[in-house]
C-alpha cells in the first residue's frame, strides 16, 4: 500500500503542464457531445416522454438482459481469464491466438458480430440448423449477442488483475495442503476481486449499450428483443426528442454504474 501511494504521488509531480492541453482536448472530445445531449434534452416534456409504455418495456428488457449477460460473463469469463493469465508458459502461437480470440470482439464492428452469430446459430447456421428450437428473434438471442460483445471487457480486466497479483500466496497455500479449487476460492478470487468488480461493471455497461449485434442477430420486437438502444434508434426516426430522452436514461444508468467504480480502474494498484 505504501509503495502504491508513493508511486502515485511521484507520478503526479512529473505531470508536465504541457500535457494539460492534449488532455483537455481529449476530455472535451469525450465530454462535450454528452453535454450537448444534456443541453438539448427536452427537460419539460421529459416525464411525459419517459412515461410511454414502450420506454418501460425497453428499459426493463435492457436491464434484465444486461444483468443476465453479466452473470453469464462472470461464470464463463473468470475461468477464461485464468487460462489467459496462465498462458504465459504456452508456445507463442496458441498463446497469441487465444489473446486475439478474446480481443477480436472488442474491435469487430458489432453488426459483423451479429452476422457471425446468425451464421453460427441462425436457422441455417453451422450449429443452428441442428437446434430443436429457434434462437434469432428471442430474448435469449439478445443475451447471447450481449455476452459476445461484452464478455471480453470482463475477461481482460480480470486477466490484468491476475497478472498484477502476487502468485506466491497461491504457492504458499498449495504447499500448506490446500486443494487447487480451495486456492482459487480462498486466495486467487479475493486477490482479484476489485478487478472482477471493475470488469463486471464495464461488461454490464457495454451490454446495456449493445445495439449492432443485437439488432442483427436478435432483431427488434417490443418487449422481446427491442432493447433501449434499439428503441432509441427507432425513436430517432420519428421523434428525436423522445430519442434524446431515452439516451439520457441510458447515460444516467451507465454513469451511475461507472462512478460507483470509484478508483478501482487499475486493479492491482489499489488492491
Amino acid at each position, binding site marked *: 500500500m505504501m509503495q502504491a501511494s508513493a508511486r502515485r504521488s511521484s507520478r503526479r509531480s512529473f505531470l508536465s503542464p504541457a500535457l494539460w492541453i492534449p488532455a483537455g482536448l481529449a476530455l472535451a472530445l469525450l465530454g462535450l457531445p454528452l453535454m450537448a445531449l444534456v443541453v438539448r434534452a427536452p427537460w419539460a416534456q421529459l416525464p411525459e416522454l419517459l412515461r410511454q409504455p414502450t420506454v418501460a418495456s425497453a428499459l426493463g428488457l435492457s436491464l434484465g438482459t444486461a444483468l443476465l449477460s453479466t452473470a453469464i460473463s462472470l461464470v464463463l469469463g473468470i475461468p477464461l481469464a485464468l487460462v489467459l493469465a496462465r498462458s504465459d508458459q504456452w508456445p507463442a502461437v496458441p498463446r497469441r491466438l487465444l489473446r486475439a480470440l478474446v480481443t477480436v470482439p472488442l474491435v469487430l464492428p458489432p453488426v459483423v458480430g451479429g452476422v457471425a452469430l*446468425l451464421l453460427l446459430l441462425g*436457422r441455417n447456421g453451422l450449429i443452428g440448423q441442428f437446434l430443436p428450437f429457434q434462437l434469432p428473434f428471442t430474448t435469449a438471442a439478445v443475451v447471447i449477442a450481449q455476452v459476445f460483445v461484452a464478455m471480453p471487457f470482463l475477461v481482460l480486466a480480470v486477466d490484468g488483475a491476475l497478472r498484477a497479483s502476487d502468485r506466491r500466496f497461491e504457492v504458499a497455500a498449495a504447499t500448506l495442503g490446500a486443494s487447487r479449487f480451495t486456492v482459487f476460492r480462498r486466495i486467487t478470487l479475493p486477490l482479484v476481486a476489485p478487478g472482477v468488480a471493475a470488469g463486471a461493471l464495464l461488461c454490464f455497461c457495454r451490454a446495456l449499450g449493445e445495439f449492432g449485434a443485437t439488432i442483427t442477430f*436478435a432483431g*427488434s420486437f417490443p418487449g422481446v428483443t427491442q432493447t433501449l438502444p*434499439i428503441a432509441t*434508434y427507432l425513436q*430517432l426516426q420519428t421523434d428525436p426528442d423522445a430519442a434524446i430522452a431515452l439516451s439520457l436514461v441510458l447515460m444516467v444508468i451507465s454513469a451511475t454504474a461507472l462512478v460507483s467504480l470509484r478508483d478501482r480502474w487499475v486493479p492491482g494498484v489499489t488492491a
Partner: protein
Amino acid sequence: MRRAAPAFVAVAVLLSGCAAPAPGVATTTTDTLAGTVTVSAAASLTDTFGTIADAFTTEHPDVTVTFNFGGSSALAAQIVEGAPVDVFAAASAATMTTVVEAGLTEGEPTAFATNTLEIAVPPGNPGGVAGLADFTRPELSIALCAAEVPCGAAAMAAFAAAGIAPEPDTLEQDVKAVLTKVELGEVDAGLVYATDVRAAGDRVDGIEFAGAAAAVSVYPIARLAASTRNAAATAFVAYVLSPAGRKILDDAGFGAPQQ
C-alpha cells in the same frame, strides 16, 4: 503543370466528344461541372443510384458523387441536424416533409419514382407463403420494417387495406435489413419493395400480392439549400429526372410517378 491540367482535360473532353457523342445529354463538350455532390438517399435506392451516378459521372468526369444510404427518416434527421448534404432522395413524402419544414430544401421536391411492396421469401419458399394472409401464421418467422420507417409505414397501410393483422417476429430498422434476414433464410417471409426483390436476384423469391396498389410509395428528390456546389448538385437532380435517369429507374423496377 497544375495550370495546364484544365486545358488538357478540355482537349480530351473535346476529342472524346467528337469521337463518340454521349447519348442523351449533348453538352459534354462545354462541360464545366466539377466538384463533389453528396447525396443522401433511401436504402432502397442503393443499387439504382449507384448505376445513375456511374452514368452521370461518365458524362461529367470532373464530378464525384458520394452517397449516404440509409433509412429515409434517419437521413432526414441527419440533415435537420446539419449534415452537409447536397441532394436528398427519400422513400416517402413524409420524411421529405421533415426537411422541407425545416426550411432546408431549395425549391419544391419533385417526385421521381414509385415503388410497390412485394413479399420476399427465401429461395424455394420453405414456409409455403402465398399471400399477405400467411403473415398471421404464428409458426412462421416474419420480418417487417418498423412502422417508424417508410417501408414499415407502407406495410402497415397494405395490411390495413387488406384487413390483416400480421404477427411479425422482428421490426427492422430499414428495408435492406429485412431483405438480409430473408436472404439468410432466418425468416420465412418479409415485406420489402419490388425493387429490392429484383435487385436481390436469385437470393430471394418475390411474390406479388393483390392490394399492393393500396400502398404505393412515392419517392421525392430535392436539392438542399445549404448546398455550396449548386451546379453539380442541380445537374445530378436533373439527370435523375431526365429520360436517361428514368430508364435506369425503369430497369430497376421503379414506377414513374403520375404527373
